[in-house]
């Protein structure tokens, strides 16, 4: 099975931004790097695959923009197909990631593989799916041998993920997925199912990029319990490290010919983690601690036998009611034993330090206080990104 090199995948994710709007003489991908033109050809005479995204304003006006471009393989990639989906474009009119970034009321929808996924991503994907099918039918119905490579950065990564999963179910054949700085797409069941169906998934992140950290748990990254590719280390969360082009820029950090040259780390979803209250000052505003805190939360729920109940509720509710329920459940668990109470105190202490509330002590374990700590933690995580969005208006 052919796979794209990190360089090719990132160049394609980058090029996909060019088909958002047309130039005076029509849609054009412009001059592409030699390693792409040598192996793939693109026909934009009928325009790109268009879709509707963004807030209510865009949807009401059915404001369509170019989202994806389909290429046919040649030479080494003969028989293969590539689907490149563009990333987020932000201005005050087209707030494409706003629903995800700023809104804690996450909505869930049932996706094409019958699992719960982010409603916003699903909505955009459903708007591009008919045109994708129209373009892919003639290519994939007759040719089940080639590999389909789905590529995208940011929102484009989430859409490429849904595209890959859908292509696998609709057409069979081999499907590879390459994402850069993509947010989480669905809950555990989606992550597990898509891990089993997509043949190879190269999920690339910068450790300091906040977008792959949202939406927060119970959203889970795929591939489930498999490796992610960390193209750039880095401690503190920095919104600018989300960019494809600007320093460090995924296009620079992925500028290599082999996946073996890229650092990998295996993220086991929900490792068993217990956090001690006395050690809370070790926590910091980093990806590492965001993950560790999530793991500690899940560990407590598991130990108390509450995880199935909470996960079932996650599939139904919105984030607001979900975190209310979680806080009430934590209060209940704290009353079961001193050990549980200690675990929860340790978790909340670390959350407060992560959120910058270093001096706030955990003195009570009421649902109200726990909920307040959750809000502070989520607020801190979303704050930097939210500020970046508000500044665009």
């Amino acid at each position, binding site marked *: 099975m052919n796979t794209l090199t990190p360089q090719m995948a990132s160049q394609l994710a980058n090029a996909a931004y060019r088909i958002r709007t047309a*130039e005076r003489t029509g849609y054009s991908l*412009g001059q592409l790097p*030699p390693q792409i033109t040598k192996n793939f050809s693109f026909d934009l005479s009928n325009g790109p695959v268009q879709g509707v995204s963004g807030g209510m304003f865009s949807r009401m006006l059915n404001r369509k923009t170019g989202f994806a471009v389909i290429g046919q393989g040649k030479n080494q990639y003969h028989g293969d197909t590539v689907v490149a989906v563009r990333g987020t474009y932000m201005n005050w009119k087209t707030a494409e990631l706003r629903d995800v970034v700023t809104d804690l009321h996450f909505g869930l929808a049932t996706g094409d593989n019958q699992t719960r996924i982010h409603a916003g991503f699903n909505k955009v994907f459903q708007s591009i799916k008919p045109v994708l099918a129209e373009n892919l039918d003639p290519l994939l119905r007759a040719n089940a041998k080639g590999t389909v490579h789905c590529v995208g950065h940011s929102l484009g990564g989430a859409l490429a993920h849904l595209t890959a999963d859908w292509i696998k179910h609709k057409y069979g054949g081999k499907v590879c997925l390459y994402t850069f700085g993509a947010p989480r797409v669905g809950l555990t069941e989606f992550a597990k199912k898509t891990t089993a169906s997509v043949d190879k998934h190269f999920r690339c992140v910068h450790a300091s990029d906040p977008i792959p950290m949202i939406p927060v748990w119970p959203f889970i990254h795929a591939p489930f319990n498999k490796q992610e590719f960390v193209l750039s280390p880095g401690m503190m969360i920095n919104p600018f490290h989300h960019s494809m082009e600007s320093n460090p820029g995924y296009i620079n950090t992925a500028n290599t010919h082999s996946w073996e040259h890229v650092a990998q780390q295996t993220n086991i979803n929900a490792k068993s983690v217990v956090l001690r209250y006395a050690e809370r000052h070790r926590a910091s505003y980093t990806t590492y601690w965001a993950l560790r805190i999530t793991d500690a939360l899940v560990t407590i729920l598991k130990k108390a036998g509450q995880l199935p109940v909470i996960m079932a509720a996650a599939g139904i509710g919105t984030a607001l009611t979900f975190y209310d329920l979680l806080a009430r459940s934590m209060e209940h668990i704290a009353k079961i034993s001193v050990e549980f109470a200690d675990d929860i105190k340790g978790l909340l202490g670390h959350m407060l330090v992560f959120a910058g509330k270093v001096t706030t002590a955990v003195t009570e374990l009421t649902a109200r206080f726990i909920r307040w700590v959750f809000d502070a933690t989520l607020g801190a995580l979303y704050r930097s990104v939210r500020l970046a969005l508000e500044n665009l208006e």
Partner: protein
Amino acid sequence: MRTSNVWRKPLPLLAAALSFLVFIVFSQQVNADMFSWFKKKELQLSPTVQGQILLHGQPVKGITVLRDLNYGDELYTDRQVTGSDGHFSFPAKNIRVKDSMFDTDVRHGLFVEQGSEITRIFSISNLNTLDFKSFNTLLKNMTCELSNPELGYDLEPDPAKPGVYLGAISKCSFADESVVTNKEIVE
């Protein structure tokens, strides 16, 4: 009594208030880099462009050349009519932009308008900026033979951004092609 004391010493109080403010601001220094998007910065969308339009080797006079500069949804269009020797020129174009964590498509296109027919003579695009040495060098002096096919130009990358590929599509040839690493006819 206390109130009148305060009003008798407005300067020390003001200084104290100011230093408190300064302390607050500087104690947030950690965040300063991260929040530098509040600053606007100057961005060059186009350097000065100079060129000549030819058809079958003869200068074309009185033809309209359009320059489209895109920054995301913003489009800046300039028009120039060629002189008797087919020459045209556009001034440099700078805009002020806010830094963003999200990428913006930037495009530079030159077109020739003959009645209702529009022909592309130069096009290049990238994310966030096109202000690179290779691109600026090309546009200093270009000769566009309208009967030529479109060529794809691979340009020298910027050492600071090794992954950023720069390539243009154009019917033109350039006085200084030292920054061109390869050119061939676009299929």
